């Protein structure tokens, strides 16, 4: 087996990412590679294209955690592709949205199932496909549409990127990854779509052959770099449960934010 390279820190794992790179960032509440995003922020690369399900809210000034929104605010991002690019309600402003509105970065808003399928397609060598999502909305206007069996679909392109940041609970030395529960989400598909896939791993890395081959979620052939985050690991924020008539009252799809 070709072994992925092992790194001692998230900083080392992202050190050579050049300006202008495109980067897939996995996760949705759970399974977010927070440590790699933080290391990227500290590393300084700029002119980035970031692809993730959400731009998130900027959290650096709030709790020290770094999100794509913080990269946008720092002027490091050329473009984002996401299914949450703005706040759900004007009363909950997201500072990154102001940057997009001002033209400081480009935003591409894509239905979540479409962004997932575009990434899966890119990783599977499918250049384009048709999907119904968005038909009948402003999203589909200006996009190529076509009928199959009397129903209308939108043409969508596969997505690949220079890098994919993923996070798994467990990995072996062959690079095989196993995710836990809803932390799986975008991780397996993004791992296939990155030309260089970097995985941050919660548990110590196991010898090759530690997993039942039937139970591997991401085959090691997709993983270029492994970093076990042993100490000072950044975890997902914990949300306290709310009830009653509150902030997200006006938010049909809530925030898509990690907080």
């Amino acid at each position, binding site marked *: 087996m070709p072994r992925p390279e092992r790194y001692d820190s998230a900083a080392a794992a992202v050190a050579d990412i050049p300006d202008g790179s495109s980067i897939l960032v996995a996760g*949705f*509440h*759970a*399974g977010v590679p927070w440590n790699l995003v933080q290391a990227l922020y500290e590393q300084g690369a700029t002119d980035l294209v970031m692809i993730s*399900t959400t731009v998130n809210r900027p959290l650096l000034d709030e709790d020290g955690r770094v999100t794509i929104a913080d990269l946008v605010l720092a002027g490091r991002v050329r473009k984002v592709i996401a*299914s*949450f*690019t*703005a*706040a*759900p*309600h*004007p009363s909950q402003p997201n500072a990154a*949205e102001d940057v*997009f*509105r001002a033209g400081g970065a480009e935003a*591409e*808003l*894509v*239905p*979540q*199932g*479409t962004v*997932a*399928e575009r*990434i899966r397609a890119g990783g599977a060598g499918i250049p384009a496909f048709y*999907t*119904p*999502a*968005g*038909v*009948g*909305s*402003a*999203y*589909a206007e200006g996009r190529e549409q076509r009928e199959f069996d009397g129903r209308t679909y939108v043409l969508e392109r596969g997505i690949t990127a220079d890098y994919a940041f993923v996070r798994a609970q467990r990995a072996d030395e062959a690079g095989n990854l196993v995710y836990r*529960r*809803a*932390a*799986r*989400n*975008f*991780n397996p*598909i993004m791992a296939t779509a990155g030309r260089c896939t970097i995985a941050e791993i919660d548990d110590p890395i196991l010898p090759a052959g530690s997993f039942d081959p039937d139970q591997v*979620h991401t085959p090691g052939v997709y993983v270029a770099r492994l970093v076990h985050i042993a100490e000072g690991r950044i*975890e997902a924020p*914990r*949300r306290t*449960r709310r*009830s*009653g*008539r509150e902030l997200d*009252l*006006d*938010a*049909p*799809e*809530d925030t*898509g934010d*990690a907080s």
Partner: protein
Amino acid sequence: MSAEAREPLNREQVAAVLAGRLERDWIVNLGVGIPVLACDFVDLDAGIVLSSENGLIGYGWHAPHGHEDLDIVSPGMQYVVLQPGAAIVHHADAFGLIRSGRVDCSVLGAYEAAADGSFANWTPHADGRTDLGGVGGAMDLTQGAKRVWLAMFHTTPEGAPRLVERCTLPVTGGRHASLVVTDLAVIEVGERGFELLEHAPGYSVEDIQAVTAAPLSVSPSLRPMPV
């Protein structure tokens, strides 16, 4: 009951009302906001499967306080509990299930719902910018689910109607909503527009029509919401 005593339903009550309308053996996707709160009220013994677009197939109620598992989380970041027989898939497979037509009911939140069943839930702005918003999985769900229901507040915090003749915000597209559950009413959306099926206790048809910007017809079997 005096007009003073009447109270709109709270979020949990709205969620409980919609949960009570889900049918045996349905596969259901509960959207972010009010809809996902219904997970606490769904009759899971009736074979209803709650399935979410982030790959949880077969979850149930909210995790008890102190027993939250941060990896068992809904798209709205509610910590929930997996049911026996649950399965996890990745995001592309989760949306494959949604597009496949197997989801019996998608319950979504909305900024506005119109009398023809169209609704708006991906951007709160009518500025024509299609690059900014929070579409999430709504456009996939409205194309894939067998039926779409909405759970929302009947008015804005300022009292402006959200149930309207025609949406002023960009619509979501896809299948139109066939049912709207609000803090004031349960309304069927059909050929003839809004039909009032249930009213919040203490609210008259006129009370509800007064905060609804489209005509309401009244079901012959009109009844109070079961709260």
